[in-house]
């Protein structure tokens, strides 16, 4: 007997884009967040590439900062939310799968943006340090954490029931947070022993004037809005995936029950 595949057994109908499915995972609230994200992203581009002045040391290269720093901020925000939701899942009485899905969705977003921040960081590094990669404490910590959270996502994919997945990944989510200070501390200590080879500026810090600070602020706001928007949508998609799993299981149970009576 072949078990009916619980997920993605049937393809969506062709007219998926329009009609009844128009809304998808959107609601009034997410649309507001979406519009706000688009508007602030537009500002970010205008200020980052246009209005903000060139830096005294870094000249135009400083403009990468306005997308790089918000991506880093978003990634760390996402991982913090993953840890918080993991803790909430484990230590609340109800063990709500909603927390688990928020944790998972947040980690996915975090991994995407951490990859992005590594990439933009390397481009920025090429301009300010003259090399793509420097064994600087921040970069190294970030790279290690990136791999850790890729591992977290792999653990989420191990299988089992929703509750098993939730418990297992919540534990790994909390262990990964335990790792952040240890990795950061060790890498910092490691780097502090060495002379930092730099071209322009030691660590990418910039003397910021008002307009630069404002551009950066716009970037952080835009990416935070984007994060909330993505988190809501992704966790709803995950809820539907879980729901479909359950429906598939119901069908499979019915099919097995029918087998016995026939």
């Amino acid at each position: 007997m072949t078990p009916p595949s619980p997920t993605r057994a049937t393809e969506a109908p062709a007219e998926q884009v329009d009609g009844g499915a128009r809304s998808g995972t959107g609601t009034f609230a997410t649309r507001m967040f979406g519009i706000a994200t688009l508007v602030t992203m537009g500002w970010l581009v205008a200020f980052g590439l246009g209005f903000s002045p060139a830096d005294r040391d870094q000249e135009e290269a400083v403009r990468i900062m306005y997308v790089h720093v918000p991506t880093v901020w978003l990634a760390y925000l996402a991982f913090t939310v993953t840890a918080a939701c993991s803790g909430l899942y484990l230590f609340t009485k109800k063990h709500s799968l909603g927390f688990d899905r928020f944790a998972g969705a947040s980690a996915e977003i975090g991994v995407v943006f951490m990859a992005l921040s590594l990439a933009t960081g390397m481009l920025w590094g090429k301009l300010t340090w003259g090399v793509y990669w420097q064994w600087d404490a921040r970069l190294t910590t970030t790279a290690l954490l990136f791999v850790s959270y890729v591992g977290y996502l792999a653990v989420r994919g191990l299988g089992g029931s929703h509750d098993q997945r939730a418990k297992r990944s919540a534990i790994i989510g909390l262990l990964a947070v335990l790792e952040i200070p240890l990795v950061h501390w060790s890498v910092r200590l490691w780097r502090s022993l060495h002379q930092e080879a730099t071209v322009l500026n030691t660590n990418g810090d910039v003397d910021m004037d008002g307009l630069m600070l404002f551009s950066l602020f716009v970037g952080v706001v835009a990416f935070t809005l984007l994060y909330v928007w993505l988190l809501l949508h992704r966790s709803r998609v995950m809820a539907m995936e879980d729901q479909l799993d359950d429906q598939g299981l119901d069908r499979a149970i019915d099919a097995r029950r029918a087998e016995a009576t026939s």
Partner: protein
Amino acid sequence: MSAGVIAMEDAGFIIGSYVLTFAVIAGFTWRVLRGGRRLADRIDDDDKYWT
């Protein structure tokens, strides 16, 4: 190396990092939305806690 060459290279890196960032965001967003639309067809509206 003239200053002009460096500036050109700078511009490529700067524009490149913006393009990369927004391309990745757009790609990820598209994937999430498409997944949502596709699954939403197969689930009752009553089961969507956000509706």
